[in-house]
Every structure is written in C-alpha cells, then in structure tokens.
C-alpha cells in the first residue's frame, strides 16, 4: 500500500463524469414494461442509493474539516464532488426513469423511504450524521469515523448494493442501459474512495477496540438491504470487509 494521499486527487480528476451525459431514453421506454417484482427490486435499490448518497454527500464536509493535512483535505474535497454527483444521478433516475413523485429531491427521498428497511434509513439518517457531528467536535475521532464511512458504508453497504444492482439489471426482461452505465461509473468512483479510507486506517495506530468495532459494524451493516440482496452477497461482502481490514494492516486477535 502507498501511504500518501495526493495521487487520489489526480485519480479522481481522471475519472470525472456527468450524470446528464448518460442517455436514459431506453430506460424510460423499458420501465413500464418491467414485471412488478422486477421494478420493485430495482426501485428498492434505487431508494437505498438515493437515501445513502444524499446523506454521505452532506456528512463528508465534517470529514473534510477534520483532515490532518492539506493533501488529505484535498482528497475529501474531490470525494465530496463525487458524492454530490452520485446523489444527483440516483435522484435523476428516480424522477425521470422510475417516475417517483415529488417536486424536488427531498420530496422524492421522502417518498422512497418506504421502499427500504428502517435499518438502512437509520444508518444513513441517524448513525452517520451522529458520527459526523461527533467528528466536528473532536477531530481526533477521524479514524473511527472513516471506519464507519469508508470501510463500512462504502466498503460493505454500498459496494454490496452496487453489485446487487448490476446483477439485477443483468437479468431484467427489458434493459435499463442508462442506469447500468451510471452504476458502473459510481462503482468505479467507490473503488478509490475505499482505497482512500483504507489508507487512512492503515496510517492510523488503530487500537483493538476500534478494530473490533469496525469489523462488527461491517458484519451488521451488510444486512441493512434486507432481501434486496441475497444471503450469499451478504456473506461475500462480510468476507471482503474482513480481508480488506487485514490488507490495511489490522490484525485480528
């Protein structure tokens, strides 16, 4: 693992994309033709991402303020730009493809909460904001906050959801190529976000309690999607979480 942060900014610059450049015309034509169970599953996953991306794009500002040096702060700033784009992308799909009602993004998010489990809403609308508030008051809590955001939320919850979305899209009776393209681009962004978080964790002198908490949080968080992702996918996400923590230098006792 490379220890510095600066190359993430260069990487982020090279990966920029615009959600408005994606063609959703086929998606709009396909959506009404999907079977009820197909559209329900895709809408559930979209709902989860709308809630998640809206939350992370807000809360990352506390992380930026707690950065330990300018290079880390610049990477958080680059990540914030990605998260805001992800939030716009999933809201655009919800409004223009799935026809979710609402005058604005907040109203559509309100309408979508009923499509996901309460545990997912609690993670993104209570636990993450509470962690960000604590971080704003105590910048020394950065490593554990990164543990929740980058390792648990991005590395387990969002990564598992993105793979579930791509698998679901693959099996649909009518294609949603615009959504697929956007999710692939989101997944590409998430990889460097996770790499960045892993770097921070690796550079920290993590204690046993923090390491154990990070592992346990990941194991619990993998289940917030409920039946929108398969038990095998949950197991796979947990295995990868443990492997990632070990690769980042955490030893489990």
């Amino acid at each position, binding site marked *: 693992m*490379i*220890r510095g942060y600066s190359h993430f900014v260069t*990487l982020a610059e090279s990966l920029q994309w615009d959600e408005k450049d994606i063609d959703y015309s086929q998606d709009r034509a396909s959506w009404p033709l999907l079977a009820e169970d197909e559209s329900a599953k895709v809408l559930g996953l979209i709902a989860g991402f709308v809630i998640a991306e809206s939350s992370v794009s807000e809360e990352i500002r506390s992380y930026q303020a707690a950065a330990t040096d300018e290079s880390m702060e610049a990477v958080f700033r680059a990540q914030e730009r990605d998260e805001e784009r992800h939030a716009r992308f999933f809201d655009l799909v919800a409004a223009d493809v799935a026809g979710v009602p609402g005058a604005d993004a907040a109203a559509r998010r309100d309408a979508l909460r009923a499509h996901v489990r309460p545990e997912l809403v609690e993670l993104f609308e209570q636990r993450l904001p509470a962690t960000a508030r604590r971080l704003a008051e105590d910048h020394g809590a950065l490593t554990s906050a990164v543990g929740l955001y980058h390792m648990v939320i991005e590395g387990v919850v969002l990564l598992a959801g993105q793979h579930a979305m791509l698998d679901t899209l693959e099996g649909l009776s009518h294609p949603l190529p615009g959504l697929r393209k956007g999710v692939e681009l989101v997944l590409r962004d998430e990889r460097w976000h996770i790499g*960045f978080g*892993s770097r921070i964790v690796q550079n920290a002198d993590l204690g046993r309690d923090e390491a154990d908490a990070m592992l346990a949080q990941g194991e619990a968080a993998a289940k917030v999607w409920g039946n929108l992702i398969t038990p095998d996918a949950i197991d796979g996400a947990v295995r*990868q979480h443990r492997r990632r923590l070990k*690769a980042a230098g955490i030893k489990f006792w």
Partner: protein
Amino acid sequence: MSVGGQVLDKPETKRWYCEPCGFVYDPEEGDPDGGIPPGTPFEEIPDDWMCPICGATKADFRELLPGEFPDEWGS
C-alpha cells in the same frame, strides 16, 4: 547479496499497483487471505483473483516503475 565482502542491494522486486484504489501487490507478502501464498509472482496469480481492498480485477493492476511514488512508500 554479498560479493567480495561488499553488500549489494538485492534486485528490486517487481510490485504491482491497483489503479482504482492504490493497493500495491508485493510478491514477497502475497495475499494469503485471497489464496495467494507469499512468494507468488503477480504473473502467476489466477485471473479471477481480486484486489483485497477494492475488489478490482487483476487486469486493473499495472506494474510499478522503479522509484515510482518514492516519497510515499510505507514501511
């Protein structure tokens, strides 16, 4: 390595870099949790192996050039 009492640097080991996330594969360490024993050259890793950090594929890695990221190497 020693020649005539002079200690020479060992040849630099080829390392491979995951472009999506920054993980570096070091053949001396391998990736035991990913089924890759220490000492395995990158070229001998199966094609379905995935980056332990981000899940990218083997094809997403590139060889690090000698001296690349010299100020950023960890211990």
